[in-house]
């Protein structure tokens, strides 16, 4: 197995096909990152909501 390009620049140029290949890679990575970050952010928000509700309920009862 050997590295197919003479240098890193060639890896990005890919004989003129680099713009297509790297666009595909970049867009895929962004979408995949969203698939991880979105549910994590949703979970955090949901837990924060619940703890907020509990604190508010405690405050109105006046035992906080």
């Amino acid at each position: 197995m050997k590295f197919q390009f003479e240098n890193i620049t060639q890896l990005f140029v890919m004989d003129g096909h680099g713009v297509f290949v790297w666009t595909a890679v970049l867009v895929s990575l962004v979408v995949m990152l969203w698939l991880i970050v979105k549910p994590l952010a949703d979970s955090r928000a949901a837990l924060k909501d619940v703890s907020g509700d509990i604190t508010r309920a405690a405050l109105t009862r006046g035992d906080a």
Partner: protein
Amino acid sequence: MNRLLNWSPSWQWFHRLGSPRWFYQASGRWLPWLSLLALTLLLTGLVWGLGFAPQDAKQGNSFRIIYLHVPVSFLALAGYYIMAIAGAIGLIWKMKLSYMVMKAAAPVGAALTFLALFTGAVWGKPTWGTYWVWDARVTSMLILLFLYLGILALQYAFHSNEAGNKASAILALVGTANIPIIYKSVDWWYTLHQPATIKLTSAPSMHPDMFAPLLVMIVGFYCFYTVALLLFTRAEILRRERKSVWVRELALGGPAL
């Protein structure tokens, strides 16, 4: 047969799996390992495929898009079956968790279908000479995206309630008819898209040096899909179970789960 299918202790695992709390705790234990595996496989496959696999004799380097296009397309199709099966289990057993998995599968599937179409488009330009064609394969794949978006819209419109869950599950089941059509479209009709390279019934029409990194990417994407599906399901569990004691304890940083 009927006797076998009757309620018995052997069905307990199935109902335990149906408990959102149990699922949240168990998936929390699986996630670190699965994520690590997915990351390792995807990084290995991507570096191997983009930098070390030989280029194609005819297509040159543009063929390297295959290392994303084929795995995301595989999961876009497989993910639809997962969504439909989850919907079916929800309909039959009225399992809450199953509907949550169905809902979670929709955004993941939609994102992967979009990626399949997008990577296909940027591959089409340098090879076919166009970004988009209305051939049977590309069009049936676009219908898959609309099916996923339809499920998302139903869940949103009905606020994921019982009626919304049922409607979504039925739409998901009806849409399964599209999957074999996508798969066989390149054989049934004259399409611009080429027939399948990887088939269950025969050796891949691809040099082993090119196929090895593709296989790594496919396995990597299966792991990634599982991670994304689990994360979306967990978010949905927290949202729907927010009134339950264990979620309230979790929110207050209570007993570690």
